[in-house]
């Protein structure tokens, strides 16, 4: 028996702002893994088309946006085919948006578990973000195929891809911590999430390139941490300079949201079982 297990478990009222007990989360890593595995397995088993759907969905979305913005609104993406440009924007955005949406609703969705078993609650939103990785990897592979088809050469800058994905994942988790904890107390957060994400997408250069944004609206893109993430992802896939200052800003905001979210989550955690 390890020394850790010899220590008695002390049950007492907690109060105030406490950090997340990382050692305890580590103890429960197998449960985190199994939640991720369950989410993925169930998602692909329930849908008849499975992986086909994962591929078809972004392709159809990209097609619609291409028709809307490129053919009808005549927005140009410069030297990259517009459909590819959109796809490359949609991959990190969809990953982020699915992560926020799933983790934001995760505690409510797991209320049955939370009222019956103890485990560090933070692994519920964490698992929701992590289970989005499979979809993301599939769509990245799709984009790689598209770059080959369009002969937009993949360069060494692809090495920055994991960085962009990591920041997107952590940011989604941070936002998810806030939203999931808020969602327990205020049920209308559930209704707000899709609306928030939709607005946020249009405030992010996903379906339009940054250079078409009029000067007086540039500040929106500048304060939006998703700008740096999406632009870095694009630079990594399509070639081009990594926007270091924008990415640095994204990382800073991500860390702030993550830490504050973790404390807020922890503060609300003790109420979850009583409220759910």
């Amino acid at each position: 028996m390890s020394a850790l297990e010899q220590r008695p478990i002390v049950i007492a009222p907690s109060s105030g702002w406490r950090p997340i007990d990382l050692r305890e989360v580590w103890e429960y890593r197998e449960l985190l893994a199994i939640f991720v595995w369950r989410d993925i397995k169930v998602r692909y088993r329930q849908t008849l088309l499975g992986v086909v759907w994962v591929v078809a969905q972004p392709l159809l979305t990209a097609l619609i946006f291409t028709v809307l913005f490129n053919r009808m609104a005549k927005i140009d993406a410069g030297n990259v085919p517009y459909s590819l440009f959109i796809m490359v924007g949609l991959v990190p955005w969809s990953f982020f948006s699915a992560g926020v949406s799933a983790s934001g609703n995760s505690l409510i969705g797991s209320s049955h578990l939370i009222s019956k078993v103890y485990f560090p609650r933070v692994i519920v939103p964490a698992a929701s973000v992590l289970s989005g990785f499979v979809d993301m990897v599939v769509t990245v592979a799709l984009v790689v195929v598209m770059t080959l088809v369009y002969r937009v050469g993949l360069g060494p800058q692809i090495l920055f891809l994991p960085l962009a994905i990591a920041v997107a994942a952590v940011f989604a988790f941070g936002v998810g911590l806030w939203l999931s904890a808020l969602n327990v107390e205020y049920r209308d957060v559930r209704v707000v999430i899709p609306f928030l994400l939709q607005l946020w997408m249009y405030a992010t250069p996903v379906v339009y390139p940054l250079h078409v944004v009029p000067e007086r609206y540039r500040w929106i893109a500048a304060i939006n941490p998703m700008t740096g993430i999406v632009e870095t992802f694009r630079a990594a896939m399509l070639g081009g300079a990594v926007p270091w200052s924008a990415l640095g800003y994204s990382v800073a905001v991500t860390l702030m949201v993550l830490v504050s979210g973790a404390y807020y989550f922890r503060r609300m955690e003790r109420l979850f079982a009583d409220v759910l």
Partner: protein
Amino acid sequence: MTRAIEAEHLAKKYLIGGVKEMSYRTLRDSLGSLFRRRGGAPARETIWALRDVSFTVDRGEVIGIIGRNGAGKSTLLKILSRITEPTSGLARLYGRAGSLLEVGTGFHPELTGRENIFLNGAILGMRRAEIARKLDEIVAFAEIGQFLDTPVKRYSSGMYVRLAFAVAAHLDTEILIVDEVLAVGDVSFQRKCLNKMEDVGRHGRTILYVSHNLASITRLCPRAMLVDAGRIVHDGPSHEVVRHYLHSDLGTTAAREWPDNATAPADDVVRLRAVRVRSGGAVTSKVDIRRPVDIEVEWEALEGGHPLVPNLHFQNEEGLVVFVTADLDPEWRGRARAPGRYVSTAHVPGNYFSEGTLVVSVAVSTMDPVRVHVYERDAVAFDVVDVLSGDTARGDYGGQIPGVVRPLLPWTNQLLAPAEMTR
């Protein structure tokens, strides 16, 4: 003896505001309260689900916890399982603790039996390697054989429950907290689980076991605690505690009333108002075995259009269901009830029950499709007593009489032939 659990002055407070218990709010409520003057917010009542609970448990002890509904048993288990925090007080658990407040927690219908074993095991706190090691044993225990790789949504309900139990039964933490999980499943499988738990107890593990099944408490647990109104009112050898429970007002409550909308058992359609045991017209918890007993259910139909059927479940002190009865009053049968207050009374004839305590659970349901609107377990109870007057089914016999019911049956005799003719 080594300590396993120490609880010191545990207390738990719940807030009851308006209608819902400690419920979620909407943003509008919170924003609204910003603009409302202080004190204008609806008064929030506090309820102490648990107060000043202290006890110690030694390693290897198996302890039963009994008490009527709402006494605080579940709150105590939830605190010791770390699902909810105490409002004040402290508890220490020495050793790995696992809790079974339900079987099959987290089971996913789309996943196979094997996958659910791993998922459920992990949720209960078992390591992957540990589950893998016990897999064969669990499968054998569950008797699911070739269905191991079939999604559990295709399982019969019996198989589903057996699998859930099998995983739970193999949770071998040093401290095990069990809540009433044996209330489902078929009888022979229940027996098997009880035996498995007894084994677990013999291996020096500490078990806290909450149950309504008093017989299983006395059989499994040398020691028991009686919880009432958030306090431990009795702690000692389980047969003594069970006897105390049965002979106190806690075990036999002839009338329950819920004047307050906030605490009355209710859903959108039905609200339970009162349940009473009457014999000879008066509300009583002592019933003469010869006299009829009326169980009176006072309830409200909150929404029209439902053919609502009050029904009663009679259980004896061993937890055995003596019978179930539903309201078949021809005047109301199949008819939608208009919103309003109703009193439905079941008339049980005299000379029907055995001596002992009968516990009545009350439900109001819709039958087609089946929907249980309210269900109050152990709502009322009463003692059936034989006054040894000679005119009961007991006759002139003074000893113990086994049996779930004790009808006074008409007997007939015929003298076929006088004695001298048989020679």
